[in-house]
């Protein structure tokens, strides 16, 4: 009997070690694009474009603006987890172009409180018209845990 009591006492002493994650993050995956220009002296410089409007081409859905007529030097754009291609239309009211991105993605667990997100791998990137001169890949891996100073794609105008 003594040992039964002892055993129960020991079992009650067990450490409870539950980990509790707190989720205050956005689970969506964003591609950070930076606007660039080639100066007269041939150096690459940042550029600010005014009146910029950006939206994604969503099959079977009404267009919805991500940015609406604002001045900006970079754009943070959500990638489509449902498809292998994401297309964005960029316009400044005068010129217009479409960026076409081909990617693969896999679902992964961010943590057990936040749930799942997509981890994208950019495979091809091109623009449809002439306004955008060039696209330069800086970082092809895009996941839901966005590093604030990360830049994925440079867009040259």
């Amino acid at each position, binding site marked *: 009997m*003594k*040992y039964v009591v*002892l*055993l129960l*006492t*020991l*079992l009650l*002493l*067990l*450490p*409870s*070690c539950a*980990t509790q994650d707190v989720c205050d993050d956005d*689970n*969506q995956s964003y591609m950070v694009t930076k606007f660039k220009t080639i100066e007269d002296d041939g150096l690459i410089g940042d550029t600010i474009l005014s009146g910029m409007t950006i939206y*994604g081409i*969503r099959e079977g*859905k009404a267009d*919805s603006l*991500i940015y609406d007529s604002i001045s900006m030097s970079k754009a943070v754009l*959500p*990638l*489509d*987890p*449902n*498809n292998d291609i*994401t297309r964005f239309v960029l316009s400044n009211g005068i010129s217009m172009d479409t960026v076409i991105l081909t990617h693969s993605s*896999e*679902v*992964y*667990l961010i*943590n*057990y*409180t936040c*749930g*799942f*997100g*997509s981890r994208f791998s950019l495979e091809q990137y091109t623009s449809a018209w002439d306004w955008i001169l060039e696209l330069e890949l800086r970082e092809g891996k895009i996941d839901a845990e966005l590093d604030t100073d990360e830049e994925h794609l440079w867009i040259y105008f």
Partner: protein
Amino acid sequence: MRSISGYIFSGLLLLCLLPSVYGQDTLRTYGPRIGINLAPFVGFFTDPQVLGAEASLDFELFPNLYPVFELGYSSMADSIDEVSYHSGGGYARLGIDYNFLDLKDRSQHHAITAGFRYGSSIFSHRAENITVESDYWGDYFIDSYENTLNGHWIELVGGITAEVAKNFFIGWSVRYKILLNPDMDPQMVPLLIPGYGDGSLNRVFGFSYSVLYKIPIIKK
């Protein structure tokens, strides 16, 4: 930390009490010792519930050296924010314990041991009803994700075993476990690696509380 010192205190108390339990006996017996680890049954009362069972086999092959083999199974299921998760499988550990008590003090087979284990688990885990949020493009759903995995770890083990009746023992141990392949599934960290614990932690503490019976084959 308080609970660990609680263990040590209770264990030492047990050892002090024991010599009065039965008479001194200079005849020593040897043989394989089988044990049931009662610690996994605590999982019945935790949230989420972890179901499991574990048995052990050891033998004093050389004086004070006990090769140990442990075999077990555990599984769990939990629902976290719409995702239902399941993990389960078997595991085995192989290692050795060294008894610090002097041989001459051991007419009974009490032991204060330190040792190590190598552990391996083959298990599968699965999540259902997965949603990847996208406000702009629309949420992406998949029915399930499943993967079969093989986890490896090592354990540093300290314990006390007391012979409470002839050939019957109780023993407890505290284990410090080091996961060798924490990136076994880059898409989904296992919530339970059977025999190890939470796969999101590279180091965990564990414990065992066992009742054991030694089959007295050899008498000296």
